[in-house]
């Protein structure tokens, strides 16, 4: 069936290092992907998105990579800061605008 999943449920990173959060998706028809950040007690917050006709997109301190061949998505956070501690979700947008979320990765920042 349709699903979006993540390889690692928890990731611990030293402050100042780069973080890489991975995501696998199964629906090859999905044409748009989004990364969200969720802090405790809050709703998910948009970080960055990418269309299926691209393989890389950069934002401020974040980069999303898309590999359609293996249906893999990753979020790279440069120079991780304490404020980056959160749960990160990838989501895929089917052509019918139904947006499906993965299970999430919790990012811990070590001092």
């Amino acid at each position: 069936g349709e699903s979006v999943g993540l390889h690692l449920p928890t990731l611990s990173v030293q402050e100042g290092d780069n973080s890489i959060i991975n995501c696998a998706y199964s629906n090859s028809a999905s044409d748009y992907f989004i990364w969200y950040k969720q802090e405790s007690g809050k709703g998910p917050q948009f970080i960055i998105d990418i269309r299926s006709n691209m393989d890389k997109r950069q934002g401020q301190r974040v980069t999303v990579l898309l590999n359609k061949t293996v249906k893999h998505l990753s979020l790279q956070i440069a120079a991780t800061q304490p404020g980056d501690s959160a749960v990160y979700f990838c989501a895929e947008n089917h052509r019918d605008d139904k947006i499906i979320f993965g299970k999430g990765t919790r990012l811990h920042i070590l001092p």
Partner: protein
Amino acid sequence: GAGVSQTPSNKVTEKGKYVELRCDPISGHTALYWYRQSLGQGPEFLIYFQGTGAADDSGLPNDRFFAVRPEGSVSTLKIQRTERGDSAVYLCASSTTGRGANVLTFGAGSRLTVL
């Protein structure tokens, strides 16, 4: 308003009772989504509206769940005969109709606890 507003923020009810959860989307956003999030899980799609109509309700778990958006703005998620398994955070999100580039803005959620 400036963001998506959900009320109540917390709701405790007894098994078998009826519950309504309200969502006020960002003004002008035509698409509105409902998700359910259990502890340690990602948001689970329930239903989304384009304007007043439900474009996709395939995520509603059973006929105890129903949602409306009569004027294309505020939406209400209705749960009948609540069960303990309905306990979760119910998230609402809205977006402009950006086909293929649909960035959702979420509210803080309504935490439902069924005793």
